[in-house]
């Protein structure tokens, strides 16, 4: 049964997306429960896939029964199953959260919103589950197109930011497609495992070099890796809060997954480490990304914009881990995909909650938020701790592995970069916390009582619970990270490391 789940994980949300307009036409209010109910299926499916992989190792599903390399193969291994679970968990949590936020931000667009939401999740799951290079491109574009449309609904300035994203995203996807074309010329195959088998004898051919470079640059664009990041901050910041809550944790991380897949499955690790020094370039770009992203984040006065620059910085961590190309580094990178999904999900949902309550997310207006919204802001505090890397939050463990990886690689610069970035994270997160927790609105002395009474003014329970689940997820992932590494992540690391 678990083999069928590999296909169901895509098919169910895809078909369900087509039914959303029908349901919305009948009763608009049913769209949200329908989407939540549908997204439970990929969660169950991906959990049982992960379970199957842990019990009996990698397996594949042949679409339509056509054997590879002719048919499309869904090849599931530890990395796939792990990222699938992350995507389905986050998308389910965000879909629960979306109800009130969507009703408030775009009341007349509920039906198209949920259709696109399911298509976006389908695309993200599809990129991860498939074992076919061209199929990845198709799902990449399904995810990207629905993402463009969702982002353009956002606040003032969103369409312009989205247009830049469309241009850059299309360049990225086209570069990836070109890379696939070159690989097809030389191997005559599109199946990842088949290509991986046929490729090594051509490693010194220029065609393969071109293919590798095109693919890495294309994925780098999709991933918002430092010099190619310019589209990301505005697009994420201006998107509707539910959309940034879904896209910021997942979209760039799925691109990071693709990078790991291309670098260590389709090509053998030796190609990008020795034949062309992509990993070295990647580590340096990542180091710059970490520092520059954090500094830009400090300069922002808008919470969502700050968090978006933080996405650029955190992608740097993952790229650094991939580029270090040793056991601890890659462990840190894969663990950071999980941690970032929960941490960024948590803080972006909090930003959405603040917008829901106050109508703006300018940091200077956050005074007294801790008294008005104690639960939401506690979740934000946990998210901030994870970002800075304070144990037992999960951010600590991935940073620890990245630092160990840098030490193993004898790259002391990166150790310094990682530690510095923690301090920069402290600056920009604790600035928010300082305003929200310790700066009072000027007390009204004309009143007889010297104390101001604060009314609890929390967000609706349907928004609060997903935020708290995310925050709990940060702690749980932190506490159980040794188990996660032992059962799943250590199998992801290529044998040669």
């Amino acid at each position, binding site marked *: 049964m678990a083999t069928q789940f590999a296909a169901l994980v895509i098919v169910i949300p895809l078909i369900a997306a087509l039914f959303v307009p029908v349901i919305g036409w009948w009763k608009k209010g049913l769209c949200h429960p329908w989407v939540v109910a549908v997204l439970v299926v990929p969660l169950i499916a991906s959990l049982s896939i992960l379970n199957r992989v842990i019990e009996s190792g990698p397996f594949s599903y042949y679409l339509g029964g056509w054997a590879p390399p002719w048919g499309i193969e869904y090849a599931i291994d530890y990395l796939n199953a792990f990222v699938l679970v992350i995507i389905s968990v986050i998308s389910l949590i965000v879909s629960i959260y979306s109800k009130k936020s969507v009703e408030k931000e775009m009341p007349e667009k509920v039906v198209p919103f949920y259709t696109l939401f399911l298509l976006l999740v389908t695309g993200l799951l599809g990129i991860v589950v498939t074992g076919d290079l*061209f199929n990845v*491109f*198709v799902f990449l*574009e399904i995810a990207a*197109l629905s993402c*463009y*449309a969702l982002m*353009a609904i956002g606040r*003032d*300035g969103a*369409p*312009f930011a*989205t*247009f830049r994203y*469309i*241009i850059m995203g*299309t*360049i990225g*996807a*086209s570069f990836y*497609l*070109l890379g696939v*074309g070159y690989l*097809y*010329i030389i191997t005559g195959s599109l199946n990842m495992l088949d290509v991986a088998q046929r490729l090594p004898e051509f490693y010194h051919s220029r065609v393969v070099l071109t293919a590798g470079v095109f693919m890495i640059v294309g994925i780098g664009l999709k991933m918002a890796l430092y010099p190619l990041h310019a589209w990301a901050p505005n697009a994420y910041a201006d998107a509707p809060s539910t959309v940034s809550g879904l896209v910021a944790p997942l979209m760039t991380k799925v691109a990071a997954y693709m990078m790991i897949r291309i670098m260590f499955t389709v090509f053998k690790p030796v190609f990008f480490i020795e034949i062309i020094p992509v990993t070295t370039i990647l580590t340096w770009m990542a180091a710059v990304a970490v520092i520059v992203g954090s500094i830009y984040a400090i300069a922002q006065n808008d919470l969502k914009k700050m968090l978006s620059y933080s996405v650029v910085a955190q992608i740097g961590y993952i790229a650094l881990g991939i580029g270090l190309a040793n056991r601890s580094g890659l462990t840190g990178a894969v663990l950071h995909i999980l941690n970032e999904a929960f941490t960024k999900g948590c803080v972006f949902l909090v930003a959405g909650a603040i917008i829901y309550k106050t109508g703006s997310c300018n940091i200077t207006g956050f005074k007294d938020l801790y008294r008005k919204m104690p639960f939401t802001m506690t979740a934000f505090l946990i998210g901030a701790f994870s970002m800075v890397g304070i144990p037992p939050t999960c951010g600590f463990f991935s940073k620890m592995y990245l630092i160990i990886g840098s030490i193993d690689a004898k790259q002391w610069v990166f150790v310094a970069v990682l530690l510095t970035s923690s301090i920069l994270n402290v600056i920009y997160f604790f600035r928010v916390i300082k305003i929200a927790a310790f700066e009072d609105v000027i007390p009204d002395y004309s009143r007889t009582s010297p104390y101001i009474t604060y009314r609890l003014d929390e967000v609706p329970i349907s928004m609060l619970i997903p935020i708290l689940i995310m925050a709990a997820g940060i702690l749980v992932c932190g506490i159980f990270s040794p188990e996660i590494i032992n059962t799943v992540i250590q199998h992801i690391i290529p044998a040669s490391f």
Partner: protein
Amino acid sequence: MLEYIVSKYNFWVYVILLLIGLYAMVGKKNLVKKLIGMNIFQSAVILFYVSIGVKKGGATVPIFLGNAHAAHGHGNAIIDVASYINPLPHVLMLTAIVVSIATTGVALAVLILIFRRYKTLELDEIIKIRKDTGV
């Protein structure tokens, strides 16, 4: 040298188109021209794929003629690979064309939103308005 260029002319054509598209996307100040550049860019990739399926020496479309070609009655036709072009890249490009059209559609819709908001599609003017309003 000339022979080298002519013998690989399909690659040259695609690279030139690719660069024209890239230039338009990066260098042009008008958003519609950027979009047209994006279309040229995607078409270049499509042409590249189409050209790699072609074979020299009279290869034709791969239409399966059933038993008519089966020389010795084995039931299955013996297919001479050299006489047919490779259909796979062409089929892939059908999907890529659909993707390209969908992207163009979304981009045009977004351009309408931009025009409604800023009343212009010139990049410098939009950036100026955004600076003035402090976005």
